[in-house]
């Protein structure tokens, strides 16, 4: 698996898009620091960008890479390599290079600005960790879609829909349901609904850590009162792991049964 990972990673490092993504975050980091002039404020703005953008890039990149490397995959399949190694290797190659672009792209400006001397280092680290999780989750989801759909246009469509649903539509439906059922106790419901969407989960996770009650909103408040900041944090983290693990598990299973 490590060899496949190496070659996929190497292949991606040579593609223009990895650099575009890296430079985008680099510029974003510098601009935000320049405009806000304050690390903590820049982190909050960044959170809003990361939570929407990282899943989008993960989804699109994942599905594009999968379809584009079909030939490579077929070549590998005729070699003495296990199927799970091939797909895990490719997956980790994509997710790894995206995560690296994210961490380096944002890390460099913040470090230069004096991140290590500020108190916000843990907040910033959490932001990057969540970003990494979202990359892992959405790349795995897009690989799942690509494995299930031979037709590229369809696969691409479903991938974009998935992102749109998780990033926008889900919140709308959630909010709507809260209004419709406002007469009922909704604590547990909103907790579960948040857990079921990795984007919402990441948002709550960061907000809990940043401890900005003004931005927490209803769900955040429920989270905080229900778990207290400590255990709420761990449960959210566990959910993120689950969100990463399940799609990877299905990807390996599906890949084992597919005809090429």
């Amino acid at each position, binding site marked *: 698996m490590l060899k496949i990972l190496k070659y996929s990673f190497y*292949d991606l490092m040579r593609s223009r898009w990895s650099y575009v993504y890296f430079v985008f975050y680099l510029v974003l980091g510098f601009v935000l620091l320049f405009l806000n002039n304050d690390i903590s404020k820049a982190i909050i703005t960044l959170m809003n960008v990361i939570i929407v953008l990282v899943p989008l890039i993960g989804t699109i990149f994942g599905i594009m890479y999968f379809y584009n490397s*079909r030939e490579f995959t077929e*070549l590998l399949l005729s*070699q*003495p*390599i296990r199927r799970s190694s091939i797909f895990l290797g490719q997956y980790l190659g994509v997710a790894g290079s995206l995560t690296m672009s994210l961490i380096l792209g944002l890390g460099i400006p913040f470090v230069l600005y004096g991140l290590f001397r500020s108190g916000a280092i843990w907040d910033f680290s959490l932001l990057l960790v969540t970003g990494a999780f979202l990359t892992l989750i959405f790349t795995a989801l897009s690989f799942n879609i690509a494995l299930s759909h031979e037709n590229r246009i369809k696969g691409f469509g479903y991938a974009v829909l998935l992102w749109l649903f998780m990033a926008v539509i889900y919140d709308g439906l959630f909010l709507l349901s809260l209004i419709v059922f406002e007469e009922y106790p909704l604590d547990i419901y909103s907790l579960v609904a948040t857990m079921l969407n990795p984007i919402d989960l990441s948002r709550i996770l960061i907000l809990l850590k940043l401890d900005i009650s003004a931005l927490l909103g209803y769900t955040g408040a429920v989270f905080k009162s229900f778990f207290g900041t400590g255990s709420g944090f761990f449960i959210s983290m566990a959910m993120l792991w689950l969100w990463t693990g399940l799609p990877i598990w299905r990807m390996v299973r599906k890949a084992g049964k597919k005809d090429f």
Partner: protein
Amino acid sequence: MIRIENLYKKFGSNEVLTGLNLEIQTGGVLAILGPNGSGKTTLIKSILGMVIPDRGELYINGKPIRGKSEYRRDINYLPQIANFPENLRVQELFHMIKDLRQKSGSEEELISLFRLEPFLDKKLGTLSGGTKQKVNLVLAFMFNSPLLVLDEPTTGLDPASLIRLKKLIAIEKKKGTTVLITSHIMQFVEETADEIIYLLEGRIYFKGSVSELQKATGQTDFEHAIAAITTERENA
């Protein structure tokens, strides 16, 4: 060497293999023939584990291959359509495959045989179809493996390269390699194959040597003999 028992495979509603049984002995060149869509590539890909059969079992050297990957170390495969990762250079591709298989290969000779030196530093995406096929051939012949699977090896080759390919197959045959070939070029099959199997509607319709086929169909010309099986079947 290879034993196939009762192999079934369908893609959607299209039944490609319907209870295929086959035993392939070690050594010699076996040509797998049949009209388009008769399941030649599916059969080959099942042997390679790229297609997973719905029912039936495949054994290589007596061991079932389902879910295994290590047995492919003894197989070299030439895919029908030579597609490679486009960003990779020819030389890097050879290195990568050697690295993945953990084997040293004899690619130097083959590169000079197919005159590929000027292309070594070119990206695979920029090569012509014929040149890609030559790269494909180098990959298939560079390792010494007991089983060689060639799916339409003649596609896109110029006459000079075709002659070299025939020589390579003859060398492999001498070494005792088992060679499986699919092709639609009957002259090529007649020259290279020791035995042929003819697939029709997902089963083996004929298995034997070229002369046996000619006897069975009453045709002296191989191409006509093959055509005769198909039309005979259609008329029946």
